[in-house]
């Protein structure tokens, strides 16, 4: 008796179809089934944010969702926002401002920050600290994460202005 069901999700622009048990958490679907290992696991209880991805335009902790709930959805992970030839300003800013140490929280942090900057393009420090409070970092003490996000926001806003 197979308990598996058919699912189709889009991840980083690519459509994926597979059979899985509905109880499978989305984070495992991504990491083990689809080999997308950028999103990490820090708790599996929705507390740490290491597994954060974007689903249909919203920040979601991928350990909070069953694969069944993700069926038909459009998902973006850290791998989908930029690569060696087209770094996202946040990816660059985290390096420039030492916004990471062990790097384990980083994919979740950056992908969350992409949404934060869409929600609030010019956030205050307080808005950044509040908007990022679903993502835990054990290494950096957040000060340089805040700085990195501020720097990326400035860069993105300047680029937008230049384009207008």
């Amino acid at each position, binding site marked *: 008796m197979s308990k598996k069901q058919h699912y189709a999700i889009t991840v980083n622009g690519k459509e994926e179809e597979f059979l899985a048990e509905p109880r499978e958490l989305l984070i495992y679907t991504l990491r083990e089934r689809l080999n997308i290992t950028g999103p*990490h*696991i820090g708790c599996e209880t929705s*507390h740490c944010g290491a597994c954060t991805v974007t689903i249909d335009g919203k920040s979601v902790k991928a350990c909070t969702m069953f694969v069944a709930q993700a069926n038909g959805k459009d998902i973006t992970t850290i*791998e989908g926002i930029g690569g060696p030839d087209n770094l996202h300003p946040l990816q*660059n800013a985290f*390096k420039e401002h030492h916004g990471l140490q062990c790097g*384990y929280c980083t994919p979740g942090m950056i992908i969350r920050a992409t949404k934060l900057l869409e929600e609030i393009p010019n956030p205050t420090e307080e808005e950044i600290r509040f908007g990022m*409070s679903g993502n835990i970092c054990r290494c950096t003490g957040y000060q340089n994460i805040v700085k990195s996000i501020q720097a990326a926001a400035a860069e993105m806003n300047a680029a937008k202005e230049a384009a207008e």
Partner: protein
Amino acid sequence: MKDEVTRDERVDNLKGMGCSRKRVEDARFTQGKGNYVDDIKLDGMLFGDFVRSPYAHARIKSIDTAAALEVPGVLAVLTAADLEPLGLHWMPTLAGDKQMVLADGKVLFQGQEVAYVVAEDRYAAADGIEAVEVDYEELPVLVDPFEALKSDVVLREDLVAEDGTLPDGAHGPRKHHNHIFTWEAGDKEPTEQVIANAEVVAEESMYYHRTHPCPLETCGCVASMDKVNGKLTLGGTFQAPHAIRTVVSLISGIEEHNIRVISPDIGGGFGNKVGAYSGYVCSVVASIVTGKPVKWIEDRMDNLMTTAFARDYWMKGKISATPEGKITGLHCHVTADHGGFDACADPTKFPAGFMNICTGSYDIPTAYLEVDGVYTNKAPGGVSYRCSFRVTEAVYFIERMIEVLAIKLDMDAAELRRINFIKKEQFPYTAALGWEYDSGDYHTAWDKALKAVDYDGLRAEQTQRVADFKAGKTRKLMGIGLSFFTEIVGAGPVKNCDILGLGMFDSCEIRIHPTGSAIARLGTISQGQGHATTFAQILASEIGLPADSITIEEGDTDTAPYGLGTYGSRSTPVAGAATAMAGRKIRAKAQMIAAYLLEVHDDDVEFDVDRFAVKGAPEKFKTMKEIAFAAYNQAIPGLEPGLEAVSYYDPPNMTYPFGAYVCVMDIDVDTGVPDIRRFYALDDCGTRINPMIIEGQVHGGLTEALAVALGQEIAYDKMGNCKTGTLMDFFLPTAWEVPNYETDYTVTPSPHHPIGAKGVGESPHVGGVPCFSNAVQDAFRPFGNTHTNMPHDHWRIWKTANDLGLHG
């Protein structure tokens, strides 16, 4: 040859010591391309997970695995009975005790490993775990170490002889069946005498609560036994890969050359990943049994409840002084709760770690320390959570005792510190408990810190605040937290530091490539500290090749030279020294090559940034790049081809970083919520290799200190149930709770370290915990508070206010 580039530009090109070089690690991490243990995927890989005990103390009457073996996807279930024929049902701990790999007839703490289920994936393993039937008989539970020392209940029957006598433990005689060791330092009678005759004596008892390092990535491994070639590969979250290889070899009988241990990227360690855990042993056995690779990854609950607690020290202190405040003696007794097995990660000769640094930064003529280790029904561990072997406990103890003494003397605590600091001219200074502090300039650091925060102004503001509070104008109190700490890091000299007999040296091996780039391999392993960036900087300055042309590699025991790993802030003091020394060997050979090429005597060339030049004729030179090429491609009489070096560095002493911290906090007495207004941290870690990384370490360490001081704990109920097994209950601060920190520094190089560096990763944690705690306590000092125990969460702060009658 004409040189177009200025000397300053040549220095800049190297990106050597002292510059804030951006990290080379970051590209992969920011792009989701890190390679952590759970990212490892091997053909046919299985997944193992544990059946864990729900009870803190119970006898196991039976284990029935039949139903589990019927679960689809489950391949095997291991119990102690399966491991026993291999002699692997128990394993040695780092502290000279032994520990059950899988429950052997009984369990001693909640969450203890009882059986290991091997399945095709995590979900099947979880189903299998559900189906294992274990019949337990509950036994009386001991969670209080003082009670344990009086109780008839025997926790470790294996440590009681058949005739009921107690054989000596690894650290000498045992006083009771639940007692592990007594460890002493200093002079008992003279100290007691000084205190008995002193004009002023302050006493305090304090509990440094149990907590946990809780890196964001939990522990895990992938074991892969290649039966065809007889080789075992073990990848995992190991802070000490070579030590793990040796331990695996010793307990499994597999020859060490047939074992390859790999530490991939590690998602934070903070001490959690130093020890040897059941998951490693069971995964190796399961791989041998099934012939397939087996992965084991802790979930967060396993992590918090079973691997590597920290602290849990009950400390009783007496400190004596003259009426003017000159300290004359210090007495400390510790009851150390080690849990069910003594698995503390300390150098062998130090069962209480470096607790004997508890005289702190002060010139205390006589002192005595006694530590009693005790078994209870709690998880084993006792790791150094972002600190060097119990130095956090030691510094917390002395920095609280100073405050308590200041209250007794009715003196300002900053002034009391100042008049007792070891003076600059006293270094090297031998402390009453035996350590020789290598260097320091405490007064300069302290004055700089107090000036930076306008200490007198803060005190005036605080006095006004107290008046306003009493007048009903505010409900907020103000606390000024001070701490001055001396760390002891860089373990350590092989003559007194070893773990399981392995000397605590470290190593570096360098190969220069013909075109003037290089690879260096070390016995350490980064967990976020940025070794690939900073060690290349050390080398760049030593050998004159750009840091960007130097690859640093760590964590593969097949390629890296033997070393004892990364913890206790030992990488820079020990492996950093090895790196510099190996670099100097390279330079020595390069000098001979340069002299040959320039047709002068060896002594007639000198090193200058990135080249050797003829003394007095700087226009005649050979760059290190040219020298590298010549080393491989030119026949030089009397010299072997090639340019390589290796150094094993046995440090002559520990290093002693220090720092001065000030925290300003507002406390709402009605809600118990603290608001950190300001935190100033001055660190002196000797020579600074990369200021950007130092600052990052300080921010991170302070945040972990904030967590421990203000809320983080591993708590048990009377039944031995762990009450803080998830991130719901175990406090990890978010960006919202954490302030911005102001960092500052002085530089007092270590006189015995080749580049004068002392290590910094743990200082902010060690100095930060007492600073946050002192701020809370100081806010209540005007109302009669002397000491309250951490963690100062909102409830406990509210309770302190309530107990002092501040709620009207």
